[in-house]
């Protein structure tokens, strides 16, 4: 056995500036933002990536400028395919950062161009690719993105590929592509037999992890490429980026387990440009119990030695005491869920983000015999830890997932609108979008319960002056600053919210309130049980949220959300107050690459970004919101709160003046 490891290659289909997934080369389904998806795969340390522009393959021009944005995100080998018809184009692509160029139709039409490319760029840079479909009882070759039957038979094609000197072969089964039915091993065997001297990539149909190994172990392929498997999860074919871990690959290929000398290491660099100074405590008063300071809105530290949020905690703690009664309440709730799901496929909706709380809650529900439908709002800024964690937990639990992927250009426009509005709560569109997606899924499937992974014991309650959210706020900010029409964003506008909360009978519940929920224990448990990973605090589950919390809010507004979280952990006995104070007062260094990524994707140069970071500040009060309606309808929302249709925190924060 040779020591070079078989390669497992995500094959990603580009259509304009979107990634899509096809089935038998047809029906492109939107998968996500290419910059973010590539960057996730890069962080997952995939062996190689293959980018196929299906538009260019059928005649559209090669998008060189756009491709440059993608290659700078990749530190793994990258191949490009789609419409390459000259050596000059191939050379440009190599100079832009692609290691290999895929020739498909050009090899059928003008093999001399491919031979020239081999001479100019080297055999290693040239992949000869062939798309094959069963036709009249034999394997036949189709060019131009699978649309045109070629006269060449496989044997003649193999001779051609050898003559032009291609360094690598890729064979795709059109019949299997996107079906997840398994790779056509007979086809791969035929190709590796005809071409014994060069590496062969098998592509089309790999639906499970086991499918990945078959062409390698049973058909002499050197590599396997797959699309659907790495961008989708589970029976509902929901979008979710995933890739096997190093240990899984070792098992799959029956290699001796080796010790990988790389662990997950902290790759954040200390960059003084982006330093966030530690909090200076000399000018404020601190709560004697937690680390809430007098400048936190609503702290009310002038009224006593401990803050309002500590009293709110005690109130909730008294309402949800941990013990026999809470266990009984949890079980009673699980029974209610099951009864409401009788005759249906699912008992409740659970929003999943890949974070600790929603992952643990999914586990808890399944343990209690509940059948949840997991729903994920993909705002196209996910981090690899998020997608890997969702995949790991749901796959083992056998829980179905439904993902809603928002349009990437539209969402970036919404984010830019909020940044340009000068407000602090720039990540509000994600919170509202998530809620909007949960309600929509509940309505669509006729499910009466939404469960939320919130725990006041570990997260605390965000002050209203720091974060405000409602669908009207998003509309008005976007109307004023946005340029891309809002079409796919699942906003929660007032009437819909009222319909879902008041008239559809959808209850929202936070079961972790009944559990002695300990964050660190939960992380350890999830890691042991599900291979869930915790990469550290600065890698939150979403790249934009990470930017918002680690840089934007502390730098521009002096607001540090860890103050809220640490305070909650102190109150529930999960953190030493002294440790929290030390961390709160120490300087922080956000990941400079994260900030660069944000600038690049939102299209800000340094000058524009700096101007926005220092522009005059505004608050949600400067823009039209639904706040006055929530206040006017306060009695109604009080009733809805009592009926569990809206959380108490919603009532407290949004319905009071």
């Amino acid at each position, binding site marked *: 056995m040779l020591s070079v490891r078989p390669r497992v290659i995500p094959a990603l289909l580009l259509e304009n500036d979107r990634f899509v997934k096809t089935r038998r080369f047809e029906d492109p389904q939107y998968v996500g933002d290419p910059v973010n998806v590539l960057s996730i795969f890069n962080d997952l340390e995939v062996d190689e990536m293959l980018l196929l522009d299906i538009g260019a393959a059928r005649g559209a021009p090669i998008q060189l400028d756009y491709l440059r944005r993608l290659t700078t995100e990749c530190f793994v080998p990258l191949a490009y395919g789609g419409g390459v018809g000259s050596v000059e184009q191939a050379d440009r692509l190599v100079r832009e950062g692609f290691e290999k160029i895929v020739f498909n139709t050009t090899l059928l039409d003008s093999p001399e161009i491919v031979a020239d490319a081999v001479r100019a760029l080297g055999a290693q840079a040239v992949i000869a690719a062939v798309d094959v479909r069963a036709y009249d009882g034999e394997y036949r070759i189709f060019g131009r993105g699978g649309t045109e039957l070629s006269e060449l038979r496989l044997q003649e094609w193999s001779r051609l590929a050898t003559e032009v000197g291609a360094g690598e072969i890729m064979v795709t089964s059109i019949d299997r592509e996107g079906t997840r039915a398994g790779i056509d091993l007979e086809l791969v065997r035929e190709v590796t037999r005809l071409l*014994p001297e060069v590496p062969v990539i098998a592509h089309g149909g790999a639906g499970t992890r086991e499918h990945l190994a078959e062409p390698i172990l049973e058909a002499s392929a050197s590599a396997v490429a797959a699309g659907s498997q790495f961008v989708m999860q589970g029976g509902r074919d929901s979008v979710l980026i995933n890739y096997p871990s190093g240990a899984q690959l070792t098992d799959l290929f029956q290699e001796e387990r080796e010790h990988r000398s790389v662990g997950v290491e902290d790759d954040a660099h200390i960059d003084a440009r982006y330093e966030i100074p530690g909090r200076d405590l000399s000018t404020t008063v601190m709560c004697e119990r937690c680390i809430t300071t007098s400048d936190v809105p609503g702290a009310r530290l002038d009224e006593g030695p401990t803050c309002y949020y500590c009293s709110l905690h005690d109130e909730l703690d008294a309402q949800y005491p941990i013990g026999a009664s809470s266990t009984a309440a949890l079980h009673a709730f699980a029974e209610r869920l099951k009864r409401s799901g009788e005759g249906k496929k699912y008992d409740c909706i659970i929003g999943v983000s890949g974070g600790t709380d929603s992952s643990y809650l999914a586990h808890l529900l399944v343990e209690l015999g509940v059948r949840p439908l997991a729903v994920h709002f993909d705002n196209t800024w996910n981090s690899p830890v998020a997608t890997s964690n969702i995949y790991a937990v749901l796959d083992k639990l056998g829980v179905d997932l439904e993902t809603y992927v928002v349009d990437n250009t539209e969402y970036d426009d919404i984010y830019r609108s909020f940044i340009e509005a000068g407000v602090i709560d720039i990540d509000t569109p994600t919170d509202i979008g998530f809620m909007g997606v949960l309600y929509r899924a509940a309505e669509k499937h006729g499910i009466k319960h939404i469960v939320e992974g919130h725990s006041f014991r570990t997260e605390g309650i965000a002050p209203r002056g720091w974060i405000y959210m409602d669908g009207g706020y998003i509309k008005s900010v976007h109307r004023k600053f946005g340029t891309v029409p809002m079409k796919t964003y699942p906003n929660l506008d007032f009437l819909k919210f009222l319909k879902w909360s008041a008239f559809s009978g959808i209850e929202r519940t936070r079961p972790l309130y009944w559990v002695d929920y300990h964050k660190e224990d939960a992380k350890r448990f999830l890691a042991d049980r599900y291979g869930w990973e915790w990469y550290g605090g600065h890698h939150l589950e979403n790249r934009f949220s990470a930017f918002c919390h680690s840089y934007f809010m502390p730098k521009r507004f002096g607001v540090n959300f860890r103050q809220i979280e640490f305070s909650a952990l102190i109150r529930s006995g999960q953190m030493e107050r002294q440790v929290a104070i030390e961390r709160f007062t120490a300087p922080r260094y956000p990941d400079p690459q994260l900030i660069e990524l944000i600038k690049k994707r939102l299209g800000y140069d340094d000058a524009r970004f700096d101007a926005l970071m220092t522009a005059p500040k505004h608050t949600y009060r400067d823009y039209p919101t639904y706040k006055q309606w929530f206040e006017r309808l306060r009695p109604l929302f009080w009733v809805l709160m009592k009926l569990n249709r809206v959380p108490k925190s919603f009532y407290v924060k949004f319905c009071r003046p």
Partner: protein
Amino acid sequence: MTVDITIVDYGVGNVASIANMIRKTGLTSELSADADVISAAERIILPGVGAFDTAASRLRLSGLGEVVAAKAAAGDRVLGVCLGMQLLLDGSEEGDEPGLGIVPGTVRRFPRTVGDETLRVPHMGWNTVTRQGNPDMLPAVLDGDRFYFVHSYYADPSDPSDTMAITDYGVPFASMIRRGNVVGAQFHPEKSHRMGARLLADFGRS
């Protein structure tokens, strides 16, 4: 301002990827085809992909080959990557052009068969290295580190002490070479995610 690493731009190779990876490590780099800039550079990388003769003749005709050889002779730090490594030797079975002759030896093609089995060439994919000799140069590269390879020819230095690391693909071959402050890597550190970043950071801070 002096940059950490100057990349010799003679029209061959994926210079954008190398510059991109150097930026990721937090170091600075520049691309240059200017003999004076390269002569004055702190450290240089000689990149290269493709055919040996194309690259060797471009190096010769641009005059940059001489500049690289002079820097090597002066004891400056030089890193050859992939074909850029092969160019450090005397010549190659792939072509007729002479190499730079900085490291004595030649570049050979992988055998077509090993035992009864056909060896698929290029050697393509992730493979491990085992260090040889004194670990003072690029100490960040450790036994068992995995890098991305894609090549049909490999360096065969005539002096065994010039082999810095070996890798096995059908035959054991020199995946890294060194002579004085000149180092060559057959694999692509710029495409070998964290381990590649570590190697380049090590080189750029050496």
